[in-house]
């Protein structure tokens, strides 16, 4: 005889409404977390998923890879620093290309095949190894498609598809450095030389990437080296965006938990007479608290299932221009956090139950 489940069965409308309210809150948290994560990911993915221990920028680039200009020979100077195992030049610029039938801004990255700085996150195909080949992270592109960069910068055949490797929230194209150099030259005729934007480096086994980065900054004039994680965290505006989404998600979460706590407190107060009777006839505070905990769990699980469906539908229907996918870890973290904090909020109800004086059952009408 389960008291909590029996009450849910008998008060379907009340618990249905409560579940709907909780589902909407979980949906909001899931959607905001997913969109926030997707936005940050599409702004930073290219650097975050770069196959390198660290990056070297020009000293005056203010931590912005797009503003960094380095002579390609800097790569040799970086390679000579003790602790650096290998280096690779990385170049990037924004251009335009028809994707999915529409001319759109794209971010072009040039990397040295087989050297640090190559993208990871390949979901299909392979990385380009020769001029005329490209790996793409963007919608509406398939292996074998041809992409014509504007201004005669070159026709590229798609040989690989990437996920989570975008930059500046734009479709991102990865080509070998030679092809990148050709594209830059075509776009900027008359350039005395094509600068690179960064030098990606790997460190010797056992070496500390942060220490090596500091050594590079020290040893190579007019450069600033960072570990990959530092480079990502220092992308201009990223910390503000992350914080803003964090505040939105956090506030929604806190409001949701408080609402759940109060909902169950109201339900408990409405049942005080019954709970007093049950305490009088021998029900322990623990067993009544377990009833509330079970009901919270049932509501959160049902609400999470509904919220998951709603989020999946919303993400299908939303056109954000950036790749958005519901990650299992976001779902699990959100649901477990909502469940645990809801149980914590349920302590308000348990506290009220613990204060019940069973003697008041006698003589009350």
């Amino acid at each position, binding site marked *: *005889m389960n*008291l909590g489940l029996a009450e849910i069965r008998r008060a379907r409308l009340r618990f249905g409404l409560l579940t709907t309210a909780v589902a909407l809150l979980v949906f909001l948290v899931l959607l905001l977390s997913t969109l926030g994560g997707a936005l940050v990911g599409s702004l930073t993915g290219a650097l975050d998923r770069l196959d390198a221990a660290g990056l070297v920028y020009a000293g005056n680039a203010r931590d912005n890879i797009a503003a960094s200009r380095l002579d390609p020979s800097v790569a040799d100077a970086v390679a000579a620093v003790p602790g650096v195992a290998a280096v690779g030049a990385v170049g990037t610029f924004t251009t335009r290309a028809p994707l999915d039938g529409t001319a759109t801004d794209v971010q072009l990255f040039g990397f040295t095949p087989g050297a640090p700085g190559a993208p990871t996150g390949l979901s299909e195909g392979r990385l380009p190894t020769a001029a005329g080949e490209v790996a793409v992270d963007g919608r509406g592109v398939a292996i074998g498609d041809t992409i014509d960069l504007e201004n005669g910068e070159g026709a590229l055949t798609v040989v690989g598809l990437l996920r989570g490797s975008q930059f500046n929230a734009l479709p991102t194209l990865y080509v070998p450095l030679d092809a990148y150099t050709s594209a830059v030259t075509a776009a900027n005729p008359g350039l005395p030389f094509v600068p690179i934007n960064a030098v990606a480096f790997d460190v010797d086994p056992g070496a500390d990437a942060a220490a090596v980065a500091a050594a590079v900054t020290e040893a190579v004039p007019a450069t600033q080296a960072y570990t990959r994680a530092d480079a990502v965290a220092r992308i201009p505006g990223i910390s503000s965006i992350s914080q803003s989404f964090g505040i939105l998600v956090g506030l929604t979460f806190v409001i949701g938990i408080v609402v759940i706590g109060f909902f169950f407190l109201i339900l408990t107060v409405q049942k005080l007479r019954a709970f007093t*009777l*049950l305490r009088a006839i*021998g*029900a322990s505070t623990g067993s009544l608290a377990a009833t509330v905990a079970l009901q919270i769990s049932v509501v959160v699980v049902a609400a999470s299932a509904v919220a998951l469906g709603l989020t999946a539908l919303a993400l299908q229907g939303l056109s954000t221009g950036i790749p958005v996918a519901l990650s299992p870890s976001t779902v699990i973290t959100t649901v477990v956090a909502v469940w645990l904090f809801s149980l914590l909020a349920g302590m308000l109800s348990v506290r009220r139950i613990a204060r019940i004086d*069973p003697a008041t*059952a*006698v003589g009350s009408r």
Partner: protein
Amino acid sequence: MTESVEPILRVQGLRKTYGEGHTQVVAVDGADMTVDEGEFVALLGPSGSGKTTLISMIGGLLAPTSGTVGLGATEVTAMSRKELTRFRATQVGFVFQSANLVPFLTARENLLYVASLVGTPKKDAHARVDQLLEELGLADRAGNLPEQLSGGERQRVAIGRALMNDPDLVLVDEPTAALDTAMGRSVVELLQREIKSRGKTGIMVTHDLRMVEYTDRVFEILDGVLTHVERPSALEH
């Protein structure tokens, strides 16, 4: 030679006071009472006389200021809070005013829940519920919620709930308070029959003198002082 049997319920010098100093109120003043196994006694008294306080202390719901309560081998007043909760579930059956059933449980579930408190095996609990509801004339109302039952039916469910765990003592608090005379008589008659047929011990708190005829003995309480009477004082006038 007759063997003397110790009373199952022993109340000695039971006292309950509220407040201190000149604001102190004595709710029960040194009550002494013994009830034999199988006896059904009435506890009479006007409102505020202390009868509810007394029955609450006997049932382990309220701690006395001083004095002792013993039920069989159990020293009720020596128990911890946790032990008292268990004591109320296993050794005492309560019938409160206005039935006081759990509103979202059916008649059957109200009884089954009590069985679950003491871990009665499911099969045994179901069998006992069926038997009790049958005896109480509620077999066809087993699936009804309290709001779908009449006042008398609700009180009968409460009686079934009180007897569900086969308690040593049944404490009944104003069982006729919410019932008309005929229904009240029928409920108390049923209560007496069920308690007697099972050899249980029962105490019924009431201010309704007409219900006294169903009990073996009468105790009266006035201003916290308990006395055993042959004839309720109200009937003297």
